[in-house]
């Protein structure tokens, strides 16, 4: 698997005010659980994305903490109220402290 971490999100481009919309996210990441062993029997150290947060015009609308039992290329779908036009920001935090971010805009009518 490529080591480059690539986030992908699916947000409706347009929604009615007050409508509940579904947001789907996916990020390419090995999610090394820390439970596996290499050929010599040494434990492969854990390296996962341990936190995910979504903000809507700066306000946190959904958060999730992940452990080693979350699958590789973690997928997370959740819902939110379409309140106003603006930007959604998605941030994933890696065990090594790296942050992966992507944004999506929405028009609320």
């Amino acid at each position, binding site marked *: 698997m490529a080591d480059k971490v690539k986030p992908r999100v699916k947000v409706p481009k347009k929604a009615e005010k007050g409508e*509940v919309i579904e947001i789907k996210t996916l990020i390419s990441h090995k999610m090394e659980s820390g439970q596996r062993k290499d050929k010599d029997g040494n434990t492969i150290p854990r390296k996962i994305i341990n936190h995910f947060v979504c903000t809507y015009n700066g306000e946190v609308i959904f958060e999730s903490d992940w452990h080693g039992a979350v699958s590789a290329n973690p997928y997370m779908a959740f819902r939110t109220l379409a309140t106003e036009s603006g930007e959604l920001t998605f941030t994933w935090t890696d065990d090594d402290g790296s942050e992966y971010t992507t944004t999506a805009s929405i028009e609320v009518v």
Partner: protein
Amino acid sequence: MADNIQKTALDRRGFVAAGAALITTPVLFGALFGKAARAGLPEVEAAMAEILGGKTAEEGRISLDLPEIAENGNTVPLSVEIDSPMTEDDYVKTVHIFADGNPLPNVARMTFTPRSGEAVASTRIRLAKTQKIHALAEMSDGSMFTVTREVKVTIGGCGG
């Protein structure tokens, strides 16, 4: 008063440390004997008891959607839905997911807000073997709801 608070905080820390030690010991044992350690129901119950803090979780309002049989334990789709109006006064704060047959009991925690609209979330998880998945929801009024679902796993999602 301040002393009391500090003492409670310390006691709690001590309790957590003791709990962590208890959980770590069988893991080390498992490693020594070259066998994968399993979290087991007691660890899941201990983790849930810490969140409950003496309260009792009721059944209902929360549903967990998982396949009855998972052919590949590496990626098992999981959906959780909680029946809640999701208003400022009455919403689901957090849902914790635990697995009692994995090396570690914790799977994920999802934090909702009144702006979630509906308390629904989906992800994909790893299951080492056939086991039960436990979900615990904390509501804004402090009440707790729980549900358990068994998943039969044909090929495990750990090690290898």
